[in-house]
């Protein structure tokens, strides 16, 4: 062990130390990332069924996703960085009439089918009394 350490210290060059220092600096610089959760970005939509996350949708592409809940199928459309509900069971059609959402903190709620779609991020409020 002693011999190993001696050899090692002899063969760590100043360049090695520089690399180590730079990596530590890089780590320090990226540490704020740790305090962000997966939700912090805003270019994503989280689809929950009964409170469980079933999809994390990237808003970068255009496509449709179908979620099957207790009342039937909810069809979610992503287009031009926005999300809306295309079809969902329920007499009131509330979540369809809500239209497109794209801002962090916005939520689409399809109550009858237990589906929520949320653009994660800070909207400035923790909750809305409605």
């Amino acid at each position: 062990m002693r011999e190993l350490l001696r050899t090692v210290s002899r063969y760590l060059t100043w360049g090695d130390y520089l690399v180590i220092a730079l990596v530590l600096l890089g780590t320090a610089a990226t540490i704020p990332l740790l305090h962000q959760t997966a939700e912090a970005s805003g270019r994503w939509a989280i689809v929950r069924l009964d409170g469980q996350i079933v999809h994390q949708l990237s808003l970068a592409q255009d496509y449709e996703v179908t979620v099957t809940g207790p009342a039937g199928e909810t069809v979610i459309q992503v287009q031009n960085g926005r999300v809306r509900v295309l079809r969902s069971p329920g007499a009131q059609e509330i979540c369809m009439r809500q239209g497109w959402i794209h801002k962090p903190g916005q939520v689409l709620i399809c109550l009858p089918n237990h589906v929520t779609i949320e653009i994660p991020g800070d909207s400035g409020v923790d909750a809305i009394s409605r």
Partner: protein
Amino acid sequence: MTPYTRSTLPEAWLLKRILFAALLALGIVLYVLEGFFPPLVPVPGAKLGLSNILVLFTMLFLGYGAGIFLAIARSILGSFIAGTLFAPGALLSLAGGLVSALVVALALKKLCPPLGLVGVSILGAIAHNVTQLVVAYFLFVQISGLFYYLPFMLVLGLISGLITGLIAVYLFERLRRELELA
């Protein structure tokens, strides 16, 4: 660092092949063995990367091309033996291993002298981890939260690069002395 190989090793074609085969076999064994142990830290793709020592060695003794070839062969054959060839993890490790080998080759060629084997090894380990992260991001989970792991990957790369680098330095010294004696 000037390649040691050309002047000191016997220029025999056969010896080179045998050495390469031995190094590759060792690399595969280390690669597979490492996969058996539970990960030291609960971060996907985090490994000590002992088989990277073999890549470093191959580059020093047999040239950069051989080292890169060894990195690819080790990943493919290793996953084949471990039975994970078609699992998503194999692709990650192949990409990580390849980019890491390229970075190590580049560092050896351009950045040594100021850098020693430890520094090169750290760069390689970090390249390995970050590549896995990027590939995972584009291929599998498109969640930005994946980069949450970045600082982890840097620290882990530092630690594993340090350890493998130190082992490499030690072994390299021993081997060099033996060769000089011989």
